[in-house]
């Protein structure tokens, strides 16, 4: 039972992390190859505060705040660059983050931070907390999707110049996406730090950034339910099947290739097509 709780908690954290990237890349169309840096900022902030005696739930706020603050800075940089230039800029963020962390003794340097206190409410409590965080974030992103903010994001994701000519203040909406997305990653990081109870720079590198991007692409860029399904599957499978864990990058790579080649709109698009076909043959 304890193992299942760990798996479910990891799954919830992955879903939260993937949903947060989906706001930036899926909703607003801003490709980010450095999202793990914000997971790391949340994890380090929460871990340090937690070790100083601050209750886990209280650390959520500064974890989200720090991630969002750095996210805003990256967001401001993103206003000047687009497409592949933005991808490279955000990739630089994750290398910058791990590079800085490795050299800071206060952050544990190369070794990282060990001995992060166990959550005061136990493993099941952490699972419930993670699920509540996912639920709260999910409700918020659904609100975005259904509101005029989602409507404006749709136009920015498709064509920024046209969005401007329709009177949309594109920079403000982009910054909003970065703020919400990086805050969500910070929250996921806080949960992650207390789930693993050890964090190091290697946990928040380029590979992790690509892994979460793979979850978003395989789920269907911009699709809330597709991304949840994809993040749940991709985070759980390696924990149940050792071979997938051993060849995780290979599996992710193949799935990414397969998604781009055969289902560019991901699981979401695939399921919609299947339902449409099933509906059509009735």
């Amino acid at each position: 039972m304890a193992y299942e709780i760990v798996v479910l908690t990891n799954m919830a954290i992955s879903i939260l992390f993937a949903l947060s990237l989906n706001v930036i890349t899926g909703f607003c169309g801003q490709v980010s190859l450095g999202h793990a840096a914000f997971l790391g900022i949340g994890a380090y902030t929460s871990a340090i505060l937690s070790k100083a005696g601050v209750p886990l739930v209280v650390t959520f706020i500064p974890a989200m705040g720090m991630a969002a603050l750095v996210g805003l800075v990256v967001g401001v940089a993103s206003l000047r660059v687009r497409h592949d230039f933005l991808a490279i800029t955000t990739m630089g963020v994750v290398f910058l983050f791990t590079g800085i962390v490795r050299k800071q003794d206060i952050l544990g340097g190369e070794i990282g931070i060990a001995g992060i206190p166990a959550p005061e409410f136990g493993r099941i409590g952490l699972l419930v907390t993670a699920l509540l965080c996912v639920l709260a974030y999910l409700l918020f992103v659904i609100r975005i999707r259904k509101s005029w903010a989602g409507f404006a994001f749709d136009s920015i994701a498709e064509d920024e110049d046209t969005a401007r000519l329709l009177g949309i203040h594109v920079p403000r909406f982009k910054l909003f996406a970065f703020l919400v997305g990086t805050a969500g990653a910070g929250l996921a990081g806080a949960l992650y730090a207390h789930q693993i109870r050890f964090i190091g720079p290697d946990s928040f590198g380029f590979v992790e950034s690509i892994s979460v991007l793979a979850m978003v692409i395989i789920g269907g860029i911009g699709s809330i339910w597709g991304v949840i399904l994809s993040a749940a599957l991709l985070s759980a499978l390696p924990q149940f099947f050792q071979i997938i864990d051993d060849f995780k990058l290979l599996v992710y790579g193949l799935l990414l290739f397969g998604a781009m080649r055969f289902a560019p709109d991901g699981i979401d698009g695939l399921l919609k097509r299947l339902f449409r076909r099933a509906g059509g043959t009735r």
Partner: protein
Amino acid sequence: MTPARLSVNDVSVRFGGLMALEGVGLEVGDNQLLGFIGPNGAGKTTLMRVIMGIVQPVSGQVMLDGQDISKLNSVQRIHAGVALGQQIVKPLRAMSLLDNVALAFGGSKLLSPLRALSVRSRATEREAARAILSDVGLGAVTDKLPNEVPLGYLKRLEVARALALGPRLLLLDEPLAGLSKPEAGEMADLIAGLPRPGLSVVLIEHNLPQVLRVCPHLYVQANGRGLAFGPTDDVMAMPAVRKAYLGGEG
């Protein structure tokens, strides 16, 4: 005296070593349709982009109803009452024609993400969008995606979207380009019916017969300089215009 709807004063634009516009000026009154013509390379689109705030002039001033809008960016100008229908149609292809127009009705919601987040309903905007689409002759295809309709419809969508912004000044950049002769005629008729008290239209166009047919006033530009401005018949009678624009003998 009522100030002109649009007043462009002594605008110059430089692209590197090239002077794209040199001291150009024009005025558009209320409820007016101004045809804006000139040979290729005359700087017509550049002047449109200056009026929209997309290109910054090295000198000169753009006034809307007597207010200097030169310092405003393009989004601020749109909210101040200037709209542009682009030459190359750029519909949002993932949205229906209806939503393409409804989005433009967003007003202040499009300026603030928090305000946008607080509003879910699109019913009012869709209702207004349906009316405008019907006005431009797209009432029967409001729920279609842009990929499902021909270019002529997309040109009308571009006009509908610009109108949805509630402009006082509508700039249309070659709305007849790429249309067949009958389609161009219908589109020109549609444009001729747009001006009303509170709305003026500037039509940049290469299709001279249609411009001459529907525009009571003309502004002619050549090589980045204003050549003539006034009632259509008077302008077209000017030897300099015939020479520069039509290659006539002058």
